[in-house]
Every structure is written in structure tokens, then in C-alpha cells.
């Protein structure tokens, strides 16, 4: 067992984990984060996405001990008036919503690297995330709107 600190949305959580405990399991079972979700267990759907120092990580493949003390962001840690959050809401960019937090965080990462992406750059960045309801048209609208809102 290892005592580590998971710094989630600015709040430190001391948790005991095995060497092999996955970041997703540590977040869900120990910290109580439910916005990161297991969809595939093999890093192929993006539902478990979290940001570590602003960079996207598939938490279903990541080992928790590697993130001791690393600032982590999960979608529930974003405020209501976050430009990406409000753009997804205003674009109706959700159906069942299960995958959407992953898309929100991927969009945060994209816009931090590239504040005004074109459509191809948007789809290049989001292609690893699966929305089975296929809300893709609305997600693209949301990313465009978020870029506009982030710029002002």
C-alpha cells in the first residue's frame, strides 16, 4: 500500500492505493468522483478522461501512484460559467450525457493549446472519444462556441 495525495480540483485527498491501483478506481472509489467513468477499460472511449496539469489522461489506463501530488481536473470541478461548460449546455451538446464530461475536458485541453481551432483540428483532437448517441454535430457547435467565448 502507498499513501498518496490526489489533488482533485484543488482539494487534496490522502488515499491508500496499491502499486497497480488505476487512477480511475482511486478517483471513483476513494475520492468519490463520479464524473469520470469506465466505458471500455482499454483507453478506447474517453469516458474516463481527466486532466493532469491540464493534459488529458485516460484514467482507466493510468496508475494512481504516478499522480501523487499532480493537480488533477475533473469535469465536475469546472464552474457553471466555464466557457466550455456553458457552451456545451447552450449547444444542447448531450443526449444520455455519459461521455460528455470526457469531451468537455478534451475541449479544455484543445483550447488551452489552440485557442481558435478549425473543424479538422477539433475532430483530430476529439476522435478518441466515443459518443454512442452520436451528438457529434452539437459537440462541434459547442467547441466553436467555447472558442469564441474563451477569446472574449
Amino acid at each position: 500500500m502507498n499513501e498518496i495525495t490526489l489533488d482533485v480540483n484543488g482539494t487534496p485527498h490522502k488515499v491508500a492505493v496499491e502499486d497497480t491501483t488505476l487512477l480511475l478506481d482511486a478517483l471513483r472509489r476513494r475520492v468519490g468522483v463520479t464524473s469520470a467513468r469506465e466505458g471500455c477499460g482499454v483507453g478506447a472511449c474517453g469516458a474516463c478522461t481527466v486532466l493532469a496539469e491540464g493534459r488529458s489522461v485516460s484514467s482507466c489506463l493510468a496508475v494512481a501512484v504516478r499522480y501523487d501530488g499532480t493537480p488533477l481536473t475533473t469535469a465536475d470541478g469546472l464552474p457553471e460559467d466555464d466557457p466550455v461548460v456553458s457552451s456545451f449546455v447552450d449547444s444542447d451538446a448531450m443526449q444520455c450525457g455519459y461521455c460528455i464530461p470526457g469531451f468537455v475536458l478534451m475541449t479544455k485541453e484543445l483550447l488551452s493549446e489552440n485557442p481558435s481551432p478549425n473543424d479538422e483540428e477539433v475532430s483530430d483532437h476529439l476522435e478518441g472519444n466515443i459518443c454512442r448517441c452520436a451528438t457529434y454535430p452539437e459537440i462541434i457547435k459547442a467547441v466553436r462556441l467555447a472558442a469564441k467565448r474563451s477569446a472574449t
Partner: protein
Amino acid sequence: MTEVLPDAQPAGTRQAETEPRYGVGERRKRFDALGRVRGTIRYTGDEANPPGTAFVGVHRSTAPHARIVAVHTEDALAIEGVLAVVTGRDLHEVLGDRIYTGPAFADQPCLAVDKTRFVGEAIAAVLATDPDIARAAADEIAVEYEELPPVYDIDDALRGEAFVHEELRPSSVFADLAHLHGVRGTNVNYEYRQILGDAAAERERAATTVSATTWAPPTHHVPIELPSTSAWVDSGRLEMLSTTQTPSYVRQTVSDLLDIPLSRVRIMTRPLGGSFGCKMYDRLEPLAAALAWTTGRRVRIDATREDAFLLTTRHGARVTGSMSADADGNIVAVTSDVRYDTGAFADVGPRIAAKSGLVAPGPYRIAAVDVRSRCIYTNKVSAGPFRGFGVPQVTWSHETLIDELARELGEDPYRFRRRHLLREGDIATVGTKMHSADFLTCIDEVTKAVGWDDPTPRGDGRWVHGKGVAVGMKAVLTPTIANATLNLNQDGSATLLISTVDMGQGSDTIMSQIVGEVLCLDSRRIHVVRADTDATPYDTITAGSRSTYHTGNAVRLVAEAMRSKLLGFAAERWGVPADELVLDAQGVVHEAKELRDSLPDLVRAKFGARGATVTTAENFTSWWVPYDHDTGLSEKVTEHWFAGAAAVRLAVDTWTGRIRTQHLAIAGDVGRAINPTLVEQQLTGAAIMGIGHTLFDEMVFDQGQITNATMLDYQLPSIKDLPEKLTPVIVESAHRDGPFGAKGVGETTILPIAPAYAGAVRDACGVRITTLPLTPERVLNHLADAADPGKAGR
């Protein structure tokens, strides 16, 4: 296109000049949009596990068809943290043959007892203190098998040398299957026939006949939320929280399984993270109930993605069909031999065989038809409901046939269809009159959107271009039952109790819009209670695109009953006849006497209390005329029809076989859009799912075993698979009995996608592909074969 309904303004209400109420026809946001975006709404698997929860790991069969000689559980039991190991035989000793459940046939044991029928069938369950321990221990169970001859596919099954089930065991759910009880020596568990006129004679006389055998492979739903079920016993009652679209059905199943009254079973739900048909009927629920009941422990079963692929699939289907025209181009005959591979359990396959068999000829004016639609057992993962309920597979056949027939006759595929499509008041081949199924507007709109008559680009030699069109027709699930209970709160807000499950389609949002419209309330003040069989009333299922119409009607009725009740309160208070009163956004008013009361004041005056509630309850039930035993015809086979169309312009890379979608337009007749935004999402979402089924989506089996049951190997549409242009068109041909004219929409546009694409590929490069999916490899093989006339099509 929007048809204005004469009765859109219900009697006794009046439109007032106020702020928006977010009623019927408005693009209201989902009430929980922010929670869905930030991930704060809670799904089933997000609920905390109380101390003492036993996590379940399942040991699965490695043999497609075998007698179970022995199950060795000692090694698993020896692992620290393992609480119990339960086998099918253990459960059978307590529950007897009641452990065989299923919506059509009682053929699904929650754990296999004496025989296993597919690779992946649940054989034994481990209960442990931790989910990882449970799964590891399940791997330590060893099973001795005595292998039996396997039935891998439809051809094996119809040869009739080995049988997946020794005898047919219809369940008590569908009375019309009772005659199949005890039938032995067959893998065909159900056959639907549709006979209209003399198709053989008409075909003989016809000027032109085209034939095709089509194949649509099994596919998987893959909602991103994995199935999860918790069950426990509380004061002699079995309580359950589960990812299900069918809480009322599950309640009955658990009651039958445990032989306890319905009042001692409680099924609770949360919003589903997608489903598309895979979280309904008997999934994890019978096993969870049996384990909780027999061990007394609180159990939780979480399916892994690999497990989820083994719970259900979409039916693979082969259709051998023909379509014939006379010298004037009239369609005189259609024949269709439909074979659904239902796997090891019938599930709802017999219903799929019938409900899709009845539309197998297509939505056309046809003189004579002969349809035979069979549901067939094999030793594979069981197939069940999937968005479209078997109809995409038969649409793939009839749209392939009519496209070829048009080309054979030298006619335009759009105009040839248009000439023959069923119109309002026509009688479909099944014998039922058409109403509110505007195929003509659907096909006109999609062809207009893609510029059907514009010249098709000539291409550059490598890329070739083509256009295709198709329609799809489906009957809504009938008969079904919906109930609604409405509590109007004294403050003028309301709480609606229904058992429709919101799985992303937005049913909670549109149901509140219907209540708001009737009661002149802001629909955002209406809360819809999550299905919970202790509180919300019986509703057949959330499936088959039935909820907007059926539950929507129950909701309309319950709101109208509430309006009458409130007008009655005011009439009593003011001593005036109720029919002189009107309800508007400010409350109840008597204009002549200038009397007015807000709803909060009215309710408070009635009961003398703040916070009081007024309750109404209503039922809506649809009816049908069962198929004629010999002909399969019915003058009312369904409450209403779904009509959809798709048109596509695409380019085929003749070097790689890759297909690029330049413009896809889809249209669905929804009667009336209660919420146009949510309707458009259903139209585009179903179409994109259909693109997957068309181009790459497929479960691959090798000797009965799935070889691509992970999301690395199973390809799904991503944002990269979006058409370059996608146009959804809402067609509104109001249904006379729909709530405000509305019908459902969840499946309409998944029906015509594959044949529209295949027609466009035919148009682009001259090859007719009849096997899905249209992978680059398959396209290239057809191109190569076309270039070499010595080879047959592959």
C-alpha cells in the same frame, strides 16, 4: 410543413400573453443539461455501496454447446475475500424451473444448469468483498464439459441435426405463443407468414423480376454506460436498482422468479447512459435477484465491457427476396424469406420476426406478397431488441430490391419509389390502413436537400461519385399500456410520476412540456420522478419508440384530468358552472363575473394548507387486431407507423475501397415535434449509428466465439465518421390520436441508411453489394470482380 392542429388549444384553456412556458413545440433544453455536461447527475453505478455489499464475478462458458458434467468451485472458495460461490444447480434446487426466464420463451437460465448453449454463458457466480477479488476468483472455477454438436449459424440450425433447446417453452407473457409449448426437434422457435394474393402466380406472369439475398450481421449496442445491477432483501421484499429500460417488466419477472407478490418487489432506476435496446428484459436482473434472495446478501453486479458484449446483440439476418413488376411498371409481387439468428435464447426474437416480417415487403402498393419470417436458435450470444427492432435488416432487403428493379426498368430510383409509396388512406400489405406516415414528403425533402437532380461530379478516375435514396417503415409496438400520476403542488409546481426511463432521448423533458402545455404552467416547474415501481405506475416498456405517443397520451390525459379538477374547485368555491371557467397562465378565471384565482390560492383555499397536493391518475392503452392465423394480415396491426427516408451523395475511392460521405439527408415523420431540438438529435443520432452499421460495425464470430468483444476491436462511429454535411428534416403529419399530434422518433432514421449508401455505391461504380458492412475490403473485392467477369460477386 408544420400542420396546425385544430385542437392544438385544448378546450377550457386560453393562451395568455406571458413569458415563454416552454410548452409543446418549443426547443426547451433538457432540465438537467448542466448536470450532464459537468458529470454531476448520478447514474446507477454511481450509487455508493453500503458496508456488506457482495460484489459478483461471473464464470463464463468456454464451450458453445455442451453438457455440464461438473463445476469445481473449491479453488475459488479458498481465496481470501470470497464469501460464496453459487452455481446454476444451486439456484435450481431452490427456485426450480422458475430460473428459466425470458419475454417470449422461458429459456434463459440466469446461471446454466445442466447444459451450456454459447461461449460466454454464465455458469457460476462468485460473491466477494471486492469486485477485483470476485472477478479473479471467477477465473479459478473449473468446469468439466461433455461437448455436443454445435449449431453455429442459420444453415446449421435449419439442417436440424442438433438442437439448441430440447423443446420449446413459451413463457406466459405472450398468449399467442402457447401452441408452441413442448414442440421438439426444431431450432425454429417462431414463424410469421404474410400472404396477400397469389405471389407465385403474379411473379410467373410478371414482365420483370429482380432477386437478392441480403445479409446484415449481428452488431452490438455499446452504450458507453456499462450494465449494473444491485439487489437486496429488505423486510422480506426484494429491492433492486438497475440499468433497465423495462422496470415494470423486470418487476414481474422477479416476482415470478422468486414466487412472491408484485407488492414485495421494488425496481428502481436512474437515468441511463445510453441503451439502444440492450438494457431491457432479462439481463443482469434475474441473477442479481436470485443471488440476493438465496444468499440474503446485498449483491452488486457490474458488467465489464467484455461481459456486456455477451449479454445481448442485434440479430444477424439473411433475407432472400424478390420483387416483380408488370409491363406498366406496377409492383405485382414481393416474396421474402427472412431468417433471424437469435442465438441461444429467443429473448424477444419471436416478436422481432413478426413485427419486422410484417413490413418486409416495404411501404409500397403491391398486389401480392408472400413473406416467411423465422426466428432461429443457434449456439451463439443471444440476440434481442436493438434500435429498429429487426426492421433495418428487412429494409436492407426491400430497398435493395426496389432500387435494382428501378434500374432494371431504366427508371430513377427516387421517382420509381415515389410512384409506388403508400399514401394516406392506402392499405399496407399487412392489411392495415395508413395514417400519419408521410413517405412522400420524407423522400421529397431528402432528395431535395442533397440536390438529387443536380449533375453528379465525374470524379478524377480514382474517386467516383454517386447518389442513393431509401425509405424505411416501422410499426409502433402495439398493444401497450401507459399510466401516469400527477401531483399538483400547492405552490403551482407539479410532480409527474411515470415509468418511462430517460436514457438520453429526453423523455423527462418532453413529458413535462406536455403537462405544461395543458395546464399553462412553465414546464421547468414540473419534475418527472425516476421510474421506481414502488411509486411510479405500470408502463409496458421504454422501447419501440412508443413513449411519446403512449406515455405522452397518458400524460396529456392526466394533465387534462387535473385541469378539470382545478376548474371544479373554483366552480365550487364561486358557485358557478365549471364550463364557464377557463384556465390560463395566471390561474382560473371567470371572465363575465371577473373572478380570478391563482393555482396556489385555489389549492390553499381548498385544503387550507400550504404544501398540499392534488392528485390525478390516468391510463392510455392502445389496441390491435391480432394477425390472421393463416395470412398474417390484420386490419389494425399497429397504433401508428413510422415513416423515414435518407438520401446520400458519396464518393468511393476505387484504389482503397473507402467511402466518403459528402452529404446525408434524413427525414422522419414525427406527427408533431414536441421538442424540435430533441427530435433532430434522434434523427441525426440514429442516422450516424446507421452509418456505423453500413460501413464497419459488426460482431465477428469464430466457431461461436466473439473475436472482437472489446472497444479496441469493435469499431464505432467517431467524430471522424460524420458526413461532410448532415441535414435532418422534421416532417409533421399530425396523428389524429397522438398527444398534440405527436409520435415517437427514436428509430425512424436508422432504417434507410444502409440501402441508401449501397444504392449510391451502385450508382458510383456499378456494383451491387448485398452483404453488410460495406468495408473497404468488400468494396474493393466487388470492384475487382466487376472488372473480371469470370468471378462471382463476393
